């Protein structure tokens, strides 16, 4: 490539040199009287190294760096094609390593690093009510309206404070459009929420004026999702009158796609529209309803704000007000703080995996470098400078890394998409993607990998005596020994890192095992559930009760149904607590469940005393309740709870039964005080879920329930029949995901480490063929040789495992928050992981060992 594009051919230049030499020779003959042959020789000698000049000419008309690159890349591709197996293997493990790294980093980026899509998100704090202490389901930790009003008007640490209403549930509302009814989910927020967050509607305007007052006209903002799915992304929707719950409403605007309440605060939930929640005496009476988000005033710290909020909350104990113990945390912390430990763990783990991949490949390339010593020596003898050789090796590793990175990026794009789609109960996952930051990290990682992989074999060059190498069978023993140390070191590192990963994965696996073994207090197997409250309203609560009783009866009569009952809340989902008074003024705030008779049997709850609700517990009968053992123990530690009354809104039921505990909030949380009230005596419930149990599998059961309900009322959306076990599984899905990923990483690491051992041992067996031959010739038995090689394997493995166990012991403490039911120093895990590794190592060493034992002394010595 010439700087001008028109290139003078090399041939032309050669001609010119030829002509020069001829002219010079002519002159020597003419002027010095030389013999023509002698003259020609002298002229040629005077000219100097013709090839060198031609090369310099060649270099003068080309962009040499580009030319070198192209040639090196071409050469690299050729030599990689020659070692196709190695190339495929390297590309594959690099691709897997980089794919995993990039995917995990993308998730970490989306969850922890990328700022929330709000104005100045670092100044936003989440304020919840710590009334019941920490570690509770956050949906309970809500605040009463008057406290918010106080914070807004009196607190100086906040520019403003807004609230999310926490008690809107999925599909509670009905949107009617052109004859069709859709169940939609609403979110109520205080009118200042969007200004606090700094969110502006993508279309239309925020709430204003009368719309934000009690009894004002209903104005709604559509979420981006609902706008796309229900209104076909029609921008003419702004200002349109629609019908929600058979009442008129106006769409005043559409929220931006970045406002994803569910994705941020309640993974898996999808909000369809937002409506204002007025702050008034009226709404104050509804009790603890709000989760708060505040914007810190300039200069205010979160600690100062917490102190101020606490003093305000303590001071105002007056009028109709529940207790408020403000707990403040940065908003980002609230959104994804719970996953920080897990993400750090995965990031750390994937880094270890990547290190193992690098160690593995470095070892491989070192071995390959050894077999290519002769080739390199020839190139050096032909005039390749050391610099050129290093350059060429770096190019080769760059090409290899490039292939691996390309594959890795493809895998990462697929991986991140899978993540974003699955959600898996993680917040902010819809933002998981390969973005510029992630690409930057990938390129950086690839560059480092290139240098690590390329320089290791290149550095060897300085220790290679080329002359020695070129001699047939010559071996530079000293460099060989040093190389052996490097290669063994790499394998030991691989084993150690794999061991760390195995221990980590083992701990999580054991935790998950314990978690699935937990006695939930109910039986999620062979039970299905479906939400059955119709979208229409009932004229009276009697009618409503009759409707549900009839639906329940229909399902009970269906084939295969063993038991059926109704409840207003499903486990691992929404929940609420009411405070009650028991004996001797002991107060307690149990979880409230409104259920029908038969629910206990359908859910598989164990009744330990008293009786279940029955037909007689009607609206006019004596109000009754069932409590769990935790509640009974808390209120009546020394007496039987049966026939005691509990003062609870709006009635004071008598306890007629006691059930064992039920893990209702989360699988890893002990049963807490619970009170069950019969649906026919308690009208404060919103959703109704039917639960049906069969004696055999849930497959036929779902169909059976669906048929019975459709026959009863075709309006029930029976498509959403869920298996109760799935609900429980979904609640532990983030845990399962972390466990599966770490197990996958550990498995990959194990495979890599064993391949690493295999490669090193095979290589050393090949190098020692002659020695083996001599040993056999001198009378060593095959078994002795095999033991010898296995001992060498074991030495490496034991050293690696020892280092790994030490490392794991040091790091396991970091895992503590992710463990359940196992100690970070769990002896079973710490014994099993090394044993697995040693076993695999011996297996990897066995093949080369048996090859060593079969060495034929005659052929080995003849070589």
């Amino acid at each position, binding site marked *: 490539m*010439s*700087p*001008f594009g028109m290139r*003078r051919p090399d041939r032309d*230049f050669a*001609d*010119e*040199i030829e*002509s*020069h030499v*001829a*002219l*010079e020779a*002519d*002159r*020597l003959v003419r002027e*010095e009287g*030389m013999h023509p042959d002698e003259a020609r020789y*002298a002229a040629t000698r*005077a*000219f*100097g*190294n013709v090839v*060198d*000049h031609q090369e*310099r*000419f060649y270099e*003068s*008309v080309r962009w040499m760096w580009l030319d070198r690159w192209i040639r090196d890349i071409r050469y690299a591709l050729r030599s990689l094609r020659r070692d196709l197996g190695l190339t495929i293997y390297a590309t594959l493990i690099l691709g897997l390593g980089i794919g995993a790294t990039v995917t995990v980093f993308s998730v970490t980026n989306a969850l922890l690093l990328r700022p929330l899509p709000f104005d100045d998100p670092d100044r936003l704090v989440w304020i919840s009510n710590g009334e019941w202490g920490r570690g509770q389901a956050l949906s309970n930790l809500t605040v009463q309206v008057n406290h918010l009003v106080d914070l807004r008007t009196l607190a100086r640490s906040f520019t403003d404070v807004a609230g999310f209403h926490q008690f809107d549930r999925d599909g509670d509302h009905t949107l009617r459009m052109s004859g069709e009814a859709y169940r939609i989910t609403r979110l109520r927020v205080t009118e200042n929420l969007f200004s606090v967050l700094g969110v502006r509607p993508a279309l239309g305007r925020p709430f204003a004026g009368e719309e934000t007052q009690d009894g004002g006209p209903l104005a709604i903002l559509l979420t981006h999702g609902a706008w796309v799915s229900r209104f076909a992304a029609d921008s003419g929707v702004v200002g349109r009158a629609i019908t929600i719950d058979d009442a008129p409403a106006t769409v005043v605007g559409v929220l931006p796609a970045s406002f994803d309440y569910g994705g941020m605060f309640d993974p898996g939930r999808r909000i369809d529209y937002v409506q204002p929640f007025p702050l008034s005496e009226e709404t104050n009476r509804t009790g603890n309803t709000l989760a708060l988000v505040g914007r810190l005033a300039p200069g205010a710290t979160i600690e100062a704000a917490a102190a101020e909020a606490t003093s305000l909350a303590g001071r105002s104990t007056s009028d109709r007000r529940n207790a408020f113990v403000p707990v403040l945390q940065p908003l980002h912390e609230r959104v994804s703080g719970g996953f920080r430990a897990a993400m750090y763990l995965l990031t750390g783990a994937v880094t270890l995996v990547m290190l193992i991949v690098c160690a593995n490949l470095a070892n491989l390339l070192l071995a390959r470098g050894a077999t290519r010593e002769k080739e390199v020596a020839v190139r050096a003898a032909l005039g390749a400078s050391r610099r050129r050789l290093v350059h060429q090796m770096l190019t080769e590793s760059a090409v290899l890394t490039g292939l691996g990175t390309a594959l890795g990026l493809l895998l990462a794009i697929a991986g991140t998409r899978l993540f974003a789609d699955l959600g898996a109960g993680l917040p902010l996952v819809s933002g998981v993607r390969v973005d510029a930051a992630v690409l930057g990290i990938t390129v950086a990682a690839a560059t480092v990998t290139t240098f690590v992989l390329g320089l290791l074999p290149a550095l060897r060059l300085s220790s290679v005596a080329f002359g020695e190498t070129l001699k047939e069978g010559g071996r530079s023993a000293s460099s060989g020994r040093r190389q052996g140390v490097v290669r063994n070191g790499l394998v030991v590192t691989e084993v150690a890192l794999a061991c760390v990963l195995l221990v980590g994965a083992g701990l999580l696996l054991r935790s998950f095992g314990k978690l699935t073994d937990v006695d939930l207090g109910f039986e999620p197997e062979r039970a299905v559930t479906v939400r059955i409250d119709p979208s229409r309203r009932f004229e009276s609560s009697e009618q409503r009760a009759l409707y549900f009783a009839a639906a329940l009866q229909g399902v009970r009569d269906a084939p295969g149904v063993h038991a059926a009952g109704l409840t207003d809340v499903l486990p691992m989902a929404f929940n609420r607590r009411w405070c009650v008074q028991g004996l001797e003024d002991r107060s307690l705030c149990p979880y409230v469940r409104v259920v029908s008779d038969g629910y206990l049997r359908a859910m598989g709850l164990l009744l330990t005393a008293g009786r279940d609700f029955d037909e007689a517990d009607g609206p006019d009968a004596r109000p009754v309740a069932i409590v769990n053992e935790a509640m009974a123990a808390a209120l009546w530690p020394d007496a039987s709870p049966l026939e005691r009354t509990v003062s609870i809104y709006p009635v004071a039921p008598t306890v007629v039964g006691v059930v064992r505990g039920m893990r209702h909030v989360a699988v890893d949380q002990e049963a807490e005080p619970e009170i069950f009230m019969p649906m026919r005596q308690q009208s404060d419930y919103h959703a109704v879920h039917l639960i049906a149990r069969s004696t055999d599998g849930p497959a036929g059961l779902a169909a059976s329930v669906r048929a019975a309900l459709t026959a009863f009322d075709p309006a029930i959306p029976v498509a959403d029949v869920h298996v109760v076990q799935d609900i429980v599984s979904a609640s532990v899905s983030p845990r399962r995901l972390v466990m599966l990923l770490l197990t996958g990483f550990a498995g990959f690491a194990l495979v890599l480490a064993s391949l690493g051992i295999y490669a090193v041992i095979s290589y050393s067996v090949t190098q020692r063929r002659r020695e083996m031959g001599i040993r056999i010739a001198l009378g060593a038995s095959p078994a002795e040789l095999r033991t010898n090689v296995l001992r060498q394997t074991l030495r490496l493995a034991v050293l690696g495992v020892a280092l790994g166990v030490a490392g794991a012991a040091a790091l396991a403490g970091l895992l503590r928050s992710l463990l359940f039911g196992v100690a970070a120093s769990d002896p079973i895990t710490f014994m099993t992981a090394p044993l697995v590794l040693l076993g695999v190592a011996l297996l990897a060493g066995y093949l080369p060992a048996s090859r060593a034992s079969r060495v034929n002394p005659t052929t080995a010595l003849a070589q």
Partner: protein
Amino acid sequence: MPTQPKDRIELLQGTLDVLILRTLLFGKRHGQGIARAIQQSSDDVLLVDHGSLYPALQRLEVKRWITAAWGVSENNRRARYYELTKRGRQRLVEETRNWQRLVQAMARVLDLDGATA
């Protein structure tokens, strides 16, 4: 070359270009002729390394200070002839002026008595 006088000076970087341009001032020449002419006109003091001559010619050609064409020499050999362009002529004038200034400056610095070199 049969004789290699010891007092020959290797050409300084960059001087070869000026010498080539100067040599071509009186008409076109081929490479060997240029080398010969420089050597002769410097009374065999300046040694032209043939190996650097051709890259230099190449460089000047790329800069369009000289042009080249194949022709036939007086003793009937094919040779590549170089010729000064208009730009090359201008360049030679500039370079000559630069050299004069450099030589005078060097002389002043090296000859502290103030005697002319």
